[in-house]
Each structure stands twice: as structure tokens, then as C-alpha cells.
């Protein structure tokens, strides 16, 4: 899963979390290193740590 499919699924998953909760995402898609920081900037979520393919995102 990558691109729009990935970030939309991510949006659905993050919506289920309380503010401040971290989600650990494993995203093997080659676009993820650019896409996920961009998605976090646009949506107000915080990319805590990124070590492709592992990402930790805190709900804003």
C-alpha cells in the first residue's frame, strides 16, 4: 500500500486515536519517505521519528 491509499488509511487510523497518541507505521512504499512528512505537515500531525520503513506519528 502506498500513495493515496496509504495516507487515506492512515487518516482513518489516526482519527481513532486520542490526541498525543503515537502510531507506529511500517510503510515499505518507496514514496513514503517524501509522502509521510508532507502528509504530517498538511494535517497537523507530528512525525516523531522516521527510519524508513518505520515511522512514528503522533496525533496532533
Amino acid at each position, binding site marked *: 500500500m502506498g*500513495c*493515496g*491509499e496509504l495516507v*487515506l*488509511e492512515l*487518516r482513518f487510523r489516526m482519527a481513532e486515536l486520542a490526541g498525543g497518541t503515537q502510531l507506529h507505521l511500517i510503510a515499505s512504499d518507496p514514496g513514503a519517505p517524501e*509522502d509521510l512528512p508532507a*502528509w504530517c505537515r498538511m*494535517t497537523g500531525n507530528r512525525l516523531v521519528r522516521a527510519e524508513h520503513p518505520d515511522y512514528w506519528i503522533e496525533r496532533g
Partner: protein
Amino acid sequence: MNTKFCVNLSFSKNDPDKATVGFVIANAAVASNKETMVFLSTEGVRLATPGYADDIAEPGFAPLKELMANFAKAGGKIFVCSPCFKRRGLDETKLVAGATIVGGAKLVEFLSENASSVSF
């Protein structure tokens, strides 16, 4: 920053790859908190008919039916070109989730409100 995003899509089974990628990008936009609208015109309008997209599944992508359902679930809108729909004899009383038949003015209004767009 622009908050509106439009995906122009004019293909369906005549280019299922483009039809699929159009909705993948639309899903990226709606997931990124953009007010997102897919404008279906010419052959693209067939996608607004329930069941039509059921057998479109490009390798490497989720099935188009699933992409469209998730787009609507996330609040995405689909505008369907009225004359394109009519000339193909499609049933305007049966539309997929999130779809509305519109004329050109509705598209112009959306795009004029500082929207960004991409075309397939």
C-alpha cells in the same frame, strides 16, 4: 495555502490505469485535509454509475470500487458532467456515493475559489 483540490478525470474502462490513478491521487488529497472534488467528464462519467467500476482492478493498486468508496467515506465529492452523462444515455437517478450531476458553472465556481487541480 489552497484548501481546495480538484482531480479532472476523463477516462473509465477506456483507460483503467488513468481512472485508478485519478482516484488514488484524489484519496491522497482528501486524506491531507483538502476539500477534494473529482470532476468526471466524457468517458469518465461512466464511473458514476453504480457497479460500473466493480471489475476495474489494476495491478499494484486497490480495486477502483474500493478507492471510490473510501474517497466518499472520507468526505470527497464527485461532480459528474451533465451533458457527458446525458449523451451516453446513463441513468441520472442512480449514482455512486458522493456523486452529483453538475453543469459547467459548478465546476467553474469550485476552481475559481483558489483550487489546485490535476488532470488524468
